[in-house]
């Protein structure tokens, strides 16, 4: 019941913000009917579980965003310097990196964060390790130190 309720609220907020219709009664009723229909269909499809609507992770994800933004800016600056440098100082390699996050939502967030920071791209995600394409040895060692993984794991507590 909780996933259905959180999906209903989420879709409601999304609809209200995008449409901006707070005064027309007909449109509000139509919106509520549409949202109810979507929630009913998701229930029938069986996607209303902890993986389909990971609402309990959203507040901590918002707290994680500033750290992620800062990492994106830092690594962008690093790649920025390398692109403009005449000698193109890159040494790309593939590397397996172990991870220990358990919940699919947290693992997805971790893999997406790795891809979002320039210099590292997640290629394959397996049960306990990921294949990462790194632009530089520094990017690889920075990832293996596990600073980002520690921050992502705060989502699971």
């Amino acid at each position: 019941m909780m996933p259905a309720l959180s999906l209903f609220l989420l879709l409601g907020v999304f609809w209200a913000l995008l449409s901006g219709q707070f005064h027309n009664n007909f449109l509000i009723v139509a919106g509520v009917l549409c949202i109810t229909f979507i929630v009913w269909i998701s229930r029938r499809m069986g996607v209303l579980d902890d993986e389909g609507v990971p609402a309990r992770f959203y507040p901590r994800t918002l707290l994680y965003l500033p750290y992620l933004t800062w990492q994106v800016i830092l690594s962008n600056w690093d790649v920025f310097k390398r692109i403009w440098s005449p000698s193109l100082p890159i040494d790309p390699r593939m590397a397996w990196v172990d991870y220990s996050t358990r919940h699919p939502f947290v693992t997805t967030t971790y893999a997406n964060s790795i891809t979002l920071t320039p210099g590292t791209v997640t290629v394959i995600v397996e049960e306990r390790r990921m294949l990462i394409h790194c632009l530089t040895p520094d990017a690889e060692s920075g990832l293996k130190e596990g600073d980002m993984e520690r921050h992502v794991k705060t989502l699971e507590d």
Partner: protein
Amino acid sequence: MHWNEIVTTVLLALGCVVSLTGSLGLLRMPDFYTRLHTSGKTDSLGQFLILIGLAFVTPDVLTCIKVVSVGMILMIAAPTATHAITKAAHLHDLRPWTRSDPGGEP
């Protein structure tokens, strides 16, 4: 100039520089994987900066929220697309370029 126009100008200029760098990296990088690094993400920060910059000159709050949501959705969609393309290349056994093996690209 009002203060928000100054912020917008600075953010738009930064976004343009970052996007230009992404395009330059696309031309300079040696192979498929390294090109994804520059095109997929230096570009996404550039677009994010441009959208955030535009959010400061929107006429009302709802438009501002829409512009920021486009930026947030981009931050989720861009790495997912990059990951999908990279995985497809890896599954087709595309060898990455390295310093010791410059003939990586078939």
